[in-house]
């Protein structure tokens, strides 16, 4: 506790918290039965950009500043993974395909994971410079697959068998300086050194929201939504340096122009980290 407090007072930035936005109207999807309450909205807009996946997970939509549709791309299979970086985005599907797209929705590369049988994509990430893509696919063993772009061509760089299977959507993040990958593994975080292939595991209570690197900060920020409703912020050494109670269940974490964006069902929170 002392260590945390010391860290807090010496190094912790000033946190200015804005809670803003908006209620996405919960409109009924079907009028079959009056018991169908709590229908989700027509799509969750990510703070990472203005992308959403339709509620049936079949299309990816890019929105303009006022929420208008700029483009829409239909997927032949259920979308099971989505990651948006500064220069590109990647989606993964139930049928095992992963597509890298540019910000105009043009598919610049695609991969088919697995060999025989259905190998859904559970997680995907693309680095901010759009030069590396990581995909988690298959089961028994579940594989972490790293693709790299060289001379404008994507190719398979490495594959690792992961120590366990997580058959849901799984968060994957590239961490500064990009040689590390952080992967959500059900109440633990696996950090993979893509150069040496070594794994390290860190346990936590709650839901891993993701890891961010903020401009001007020397450490990455890992955020976990604890079961008791608190958001816990960890540095890249796994030390918790901030706990916040923003009320409600957060669904996603993103960085936008230096701000940490946290998405809830009916609102978003923005946190600005300013160094002394």
């Amino acid at each position, binding site marked *: 506790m002392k260590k945390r407090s010391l860290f807090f007072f010496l190094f912790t930035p000033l946190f200015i918290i804005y809670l803003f936005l908006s209620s996405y109207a919960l409109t009924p999807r*079907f009028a079959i039965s009056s*018991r*169908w309450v709590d229908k989700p909205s027509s799509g*969750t807009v990510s703070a990472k950009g203005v992308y959403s996946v339709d*509620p049936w997970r079949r299309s990816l939509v890019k929105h303009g500043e006022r929420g208008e549709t700029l483009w829409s791309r239909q997927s032949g299979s259920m979308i099971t993974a989505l990651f948006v970086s500064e220069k590109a985005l990647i989606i993964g599907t139930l*049928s095992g395909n992963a597509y890298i797209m540019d910000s105009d929705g043009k598919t610049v590369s695609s991969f088919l994971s697995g060999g025989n049988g*259905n190998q859904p994509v559970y997680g995907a990430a693309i680095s901010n410079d759009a030069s590396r893509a990581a995909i988690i696919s298959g089961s028994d063993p579940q594989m972490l697959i790293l693709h790299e772009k060289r001379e404008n061509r994507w190719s398979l760089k490495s594959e690792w068998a992961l120590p366990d299977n997580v058959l849901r959507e799984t968060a994957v993040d590239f961490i500064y300086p990009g040689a590390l990958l952080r992967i959500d593994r059900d109440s633990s975080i696996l950090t993979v050194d893509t150069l040496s292939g070594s794994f390290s595991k860190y346990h936590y209570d709650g839901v891993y929201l993701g890891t961010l690197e903020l401009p001007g900060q020397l450490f990455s920020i890992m955020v976990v939504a604890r079961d008791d409703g608190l958001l816990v912020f960890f540095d890249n050494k796994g030390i918790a340096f901030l706990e916040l109670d923003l009320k409600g269940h957060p669904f996603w974490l993103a960085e936008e122009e230096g701000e940490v964006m946290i998405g809830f069902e009916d609102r978003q929170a923005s946190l600005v980290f300013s160094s002394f």
Partner: protein
Amino acid sequence: MKIVRHQGKHPLMLIFLIMAVSVPVSAYQWPVKDPIVLSGFGKEVKGEFETGIWIEGSDAEVRSAAAGNIVFYHQHKLENTEISSELKSFLVVEHERGILSVYGNLDRLFVTGGAVSEGEMIGTLEQDSSGLVSPLYFQVLDYEFNRYVNPLFSLPVLPEKNPPVIETILLVRGDRSLRPGREQQLEAGRWKIYIASRDAHQFEVYLNGEEKTRIALETIEATDNHLLLARIGNIRAEELFDRSGYHHLGEFQFSPGSSTLEIAVSDFTGNEINRSILLRVR
């Protein structure tokens, strides 16, 4: 479409044999008890095809329709995701021959991995304080061919007592729209036929006894850009549903003279209703 589950047992072997040869062999079991199909495959949903069915059961238990392995799950409001889901919590089970079944709108999941056996309880539906149970969303996908298959093909047939209903037939040419009765006068040329109906699974159009088209809500092909109702010359939802509340059955040439237009609509259990129209084409 309201289908009441058939629970009776037939003591006579003869009846059993007749049923065995006349009813498709079902590969799966109903995932809910006392199923009632609320909404059918291939219906229009916001300009796109419905690719599954909604089933109401008499209790909240959801069981695997066949043996298989869990390949994907989503726990609504418990996961970090930027992907919204109409399915709430859902499970995807892979069966033999590359068939996937999706169980959506679940409240709780009982399994999140490994093998499941036929009839094994895999989750529950939401149940309110008065005991009302939310419906199950059930989808069957042949991923090898990237096609959604009408789940009623794989499930035991439920007898449907009431035949489908033809509400309205429209003949449309440019700005002209006719609602024909038993006899209709019209000008020669190409006319579009629209039909508004209830509980329809298949539409057939005959002109002077010759089959002109057949549209069955059986399989939907998922391409990178569209969902296509599989038939001769696959049809897109925006074509089939280009007039709100109607199915567009196609455009046909009517030549001068008398012709008989017959439209047949059938439900999944084979109940059929026909409408015959004598066309006097000028």
